[in-house]
């Protein structure tokens, strides 16, 4: 068994929040550059240039890539042989968020009550935390500051198994067609297929953070990632939604076993400001 201090986890999450908020990943930058090279709309090219320039400024000046520094989503895969000591893990994560959003000049966008009061919590707490227990004695942490322009374009649908591949492709295309322009394209599209309603959504969120130079290990799903990408790009929505060939940079799919009677599909849309940072303790 291995002992890990809660404070060490807090410090790590703090660092990951700042890194994710300021620095676009290499995979995102090269996908944006490749999109720039292929884009045939002149306006689309100038928008992609602005985005690339923006990401350079943010990284060099240590300021946020986007003013919407999001809900802080934290994925933790915790080894079952790890013992966390020295404090309440949830409180530790809240303090890390509070401190990072304050010290890092990040916007505080959380409201306490979703329907009635909607009062800003003023420190961007609480984070949304997804934990999994896995074998081993490590903790794998991914932090995703998730903006809501793109979160609002996301959707879950319980498809019938008979809907098949076409049903999945049509559902995702429909989501991008109806709200993609508002979600700051070029997009990264995370998709979860299978499981239950909520687990499909969690898979979709995790897929927004899978590196853009990786594909589903199953060749059928890898082909589906490509098919959906082509279909979505054929919509012509383009950079910033004003027309062009590049509406999405990448489609990432994760699947899980599901019930004989259903096929849950979740699509989590992420904007070009695809911020995430990961580390293994």
């Amino acid at each position, binding site marked *: 068994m291995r002992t890990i201090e809660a404070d060490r986890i807090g410090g790590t999450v703090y660092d990951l929040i700042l890194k994710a908020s300021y620095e676009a990943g290499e995979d995102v930058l090269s996908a944006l550059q490749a999109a720039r090279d292929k884009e*045939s*709309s002149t*306006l689309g090219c100038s*928008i992609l240039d*602005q*985005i690339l*320039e*923006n*990401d350079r*400024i*943010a990284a060099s*000046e*240590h*300021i*946020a*890539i*986007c*003013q*919407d*520094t999001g809900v802080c989503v934290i994925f933790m895969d915790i080894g079952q042989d790890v013992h966390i000591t020295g404090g309440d893990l949830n409180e530790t994560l809240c303090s890390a968020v509070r401190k990072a959003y304050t010290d890092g*000049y*990040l*916007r*505080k*966008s959380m409201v306490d009550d979703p329907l009635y009061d909607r009062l*800003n919590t*003023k420190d961007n707490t609480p984070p949304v935390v997804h934990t999994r227990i896995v074998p081993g004695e490590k903790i794998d942490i991914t932090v995703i500051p998730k*903006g809501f*322009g793109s979160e*609002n374009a996301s959707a879950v649908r319980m498809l019938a198994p008979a809907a098949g591949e076409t049903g999945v492709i049509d559902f995702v*295309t429909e989501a991008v067609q109806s709200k993609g*322009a*508002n979600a*700051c394209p070029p997009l990264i599209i995370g998709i979860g297929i299978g499981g239950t309603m909520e687990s499909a959504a969690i898979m979709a969120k995790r897929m927004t953070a899978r590196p853009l130079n990786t594909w589903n290990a199953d060749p059928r799903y890898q082909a589906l990632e490509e098919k959906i990408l082509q*279909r979505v790009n*054929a*919509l*012509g*929505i*383009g950079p*910033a*939604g*004003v*027309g*062009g*060939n590049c509406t999405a940079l990448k489609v990432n799919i994760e699947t899980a076993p599901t019930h004989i009677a259903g096929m849950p599909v979740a699509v989590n849309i992420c*904007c*070009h*400001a695809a911020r995430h940072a990961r580390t293994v303790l």
Partner: protein
Amino acid sequence: MRLFGTLYTARDAAHKRLAACLAEGKPLPFDLRGQLLYYVGPAPASPGHAVGPAGPTTSGRMDSYTPALLDAGLLGMIGKGKRSPEVIAAMKRNGAVYFGAVGGAAALIARRIKSSEVIAYEDLGTEAIHRFTVADFPAIVLIDSLGNDLYEIGPAKYRTLSQE
């Protein structure tokens, strides 16, 4: 296009208050006639900067308030995303324009904002109304005063998917 001069900021919560003022016939906290509203909730400014990252937010959430503001003399808006037919009709009626800034280009845009001052609703924090002085602010005409909508015209040119 590049914009130079004064912009006022307002997003969800400030719009709600402005609309309430208009509905009750109370004076607005600033004279919006001939002005541009920028839909933004900036991040806090780090030392040495006039303002923190400040890219546009999704305009559609302001749609229900916008026609009344246009009828009260607002010249135009800056944001991102599509507008409702009601907003477009009010723009045509009043000869207004809707500009876009690139969503997520917040750090770049912040460099073009030379000064920032909160002029109303300070309690709303990032959602307070700020007066920005901007120079070389990058903008695109998304919908003009005749109702030509780049969100329709632009994608139509590049769409290769047949309408099923």
